[in-house]
């Protein structure tokens, strides 16, 4: 495995003429948890979606697992993306399918496994995400936390090498959020997955992050370890990691 699971070089992304990412260069270490952080609207989700080629890049290059995703043909890219799992912000489970059907979907479409084996894999994945017995429920019948865990089960059903998380804590209570953090750490430790987490929730960052990529107004202003990020004297980074102290000083 490449030491970098993802390598982004001079990436530029524009939406209707507005530059959202402006020359972003960063790397994601393999078998580590990298948090892409920054304030709302700084381009975190756009970076994630551009890596997955859900959003086209205006210029720059992206290597995912050693392969250039931008230059690849769509069919080759789809093959490459089978080694990637994504947990979207709202789970993105297909509402017309049960939890089990959702999780089984990638297996049914990309493998020739018999139904019995697929059912067993689905059960295993549901065990991993602590959702045993939820197979026959429809997504609207699940709570926010359960939806995310079911979506995570679907994201890891093909045993991907890299899993992307888009705002995993959004809309979750602290307990469900902490449970999801523990799941991430478990995936990293036991399944040796590379995790890329887009978030701005400090408690999650402090729990799971090995590395921080900090975005501000479409630029990477910090790329380093969590420890270094917390000690950083870059104003926006320092302000992000210690916001309450800053506010207290401002109003005293």
């Amino acid at each position, binding site marked *: 495995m490449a030491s970098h699971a993802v390598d982004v070089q001079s990436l530029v992304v524009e939406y209707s003429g507005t530059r959202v990412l402006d020359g972003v260069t960063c790397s994601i270490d393999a078998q580590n948890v990298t948090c892409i952080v920054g304030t709302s609207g700084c381009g975190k989700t756009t970076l994630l*979606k551009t890596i*997955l080629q*859900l959003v086209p890049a205006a210029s720059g290059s992206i290597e995912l697992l050693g392969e250039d995703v931008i230059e690849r043909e769509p069919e080759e890219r*789809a*093959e490459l*993306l*089978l080694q*990637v*799992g*994504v947990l*979207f*912000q*709202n789970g*993105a*489970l*297909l*509402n017309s*399918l049960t939890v089990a059907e959702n999780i089984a*979907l*990638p297996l*049914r*479409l*990309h493998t020739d496994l018999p139904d019995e084996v697929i059912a067993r894999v689905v059960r295993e994945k549901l065990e991993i995400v602590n959702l045993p017995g939820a197979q026959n429920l429809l997504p609207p019948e699940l709570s926010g936390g359960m939806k995310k865990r079911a*979506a995570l089960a*679907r994201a890891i059903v093909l045993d991907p090498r890299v899993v992307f998380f888009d705002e995993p804590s959004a809309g979750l209570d602290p307990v469900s959020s902490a449970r999801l953090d523990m799941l991430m750490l478990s995936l990293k430790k036991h399944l040796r997955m590379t995790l890329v987490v887009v978030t701005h929730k400090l408690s999650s960052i402090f729990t799971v992050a090995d590395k921080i990529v900090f975005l501000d107004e479409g630029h990477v202003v910090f790329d380093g370890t969590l420890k270094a990020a917390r000690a950083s004297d870059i104003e926006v980074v320092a302000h992000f990691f210690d916001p309450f102290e800053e506010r207290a000083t401002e109003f005293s």
Partner: protein
Amino acid sequence: MNGGVERAAEITVVQETVTVTGAVTRDTVLPMFRAIGKADLSRVKTINLERVTTIDSAGTAFIDVMMDRVPGRDACRVIAGGEVSEMLAALHADAGGARRRRRPRLLVRARKKASSAFSILYAYLQLSADVFVLAFFGFFRKMKKRPGATWEQCVRIGVESVMIIGLLSFVIGLILALQSAAQLRQFGANIFVADLLAVSVVREMGPMMTAIIVAGRTGSAIAAEVATMKVTEEMEALTVMGLDPISFVVVPKFHAITLVMPILVTLSIVAAILGGAIVAVNYLDLSPVVFFRQAFNAVGPEEFVMSIVKSLFFAWTIVIIGSFHGFRVTGGADGVGRVTTSAVVASISAVIVIDVVFSMLYLF
């Protein structure tokens, strides 16, 4: 000039200076706003707020608007006392930068509109091509789509429409026969009600009524489903799982509507003729055998085939327009509602336009 409720605030323009006094709040801004609308601000270089006693968000916005109307805003000096100055800074920190954007000129706007219309047309044609190609190959090779999806859609689009299409077509047949019977009876041409009904129902009313009902039921459902899947990131999830959203979501609907539309149109035609038969038998005293024989003689098989072909064009248009509008959704729930409405309107309009084209083909 005098502005303000109960003279709480006053604005005067003397040569190069605008002086505002009193409380500049949401209660006093309107008269002052009207006053500066009539005043000549072309020579103003100073706005004096020293005698302003209170200012709120509406007041700071008013000052900002006034500064926008002063030529050479950057050179304009604002004199304000400590408290008002702080309020101006706190409530309207970006006052200096809040310039009014000049509206682009007519030609620029027209060019933008035209280019946007072309890009919409291009996107529509691209989606149509994708759907046709994927749907065509889908018949001949195993596609990455959910097993049973086409059958499920056949039930939703076809079986669930049977009652409404049957009932409405029956009633329309009844009405058509009643309306024409009253006229034909005067000339002793009762028997021709069968011809009139058969020709109008087979050529026009059957396919048209079916298409309009399907556009209302299915077109809106397709647009809403695709749009909801898009706003909830389900489409992106499909892409990441290596699935093409068009193959997975749109093609089963396309196959299903292709299969069920001819059946629905046939049902509509039969129901309408039955409705007409009831009038003919009970009101015009025609025997059922004579009525049906006359009706079958009035239209040939080629007209029925043409009608089915036309209905297929209607069906494909409804699916493609519904999907197209669904894929173009922006925003959240309100966006879904908007594209659903526009999909239904566009589908029905397109159905009528296609009908005109086919009617002209009948002529030649």
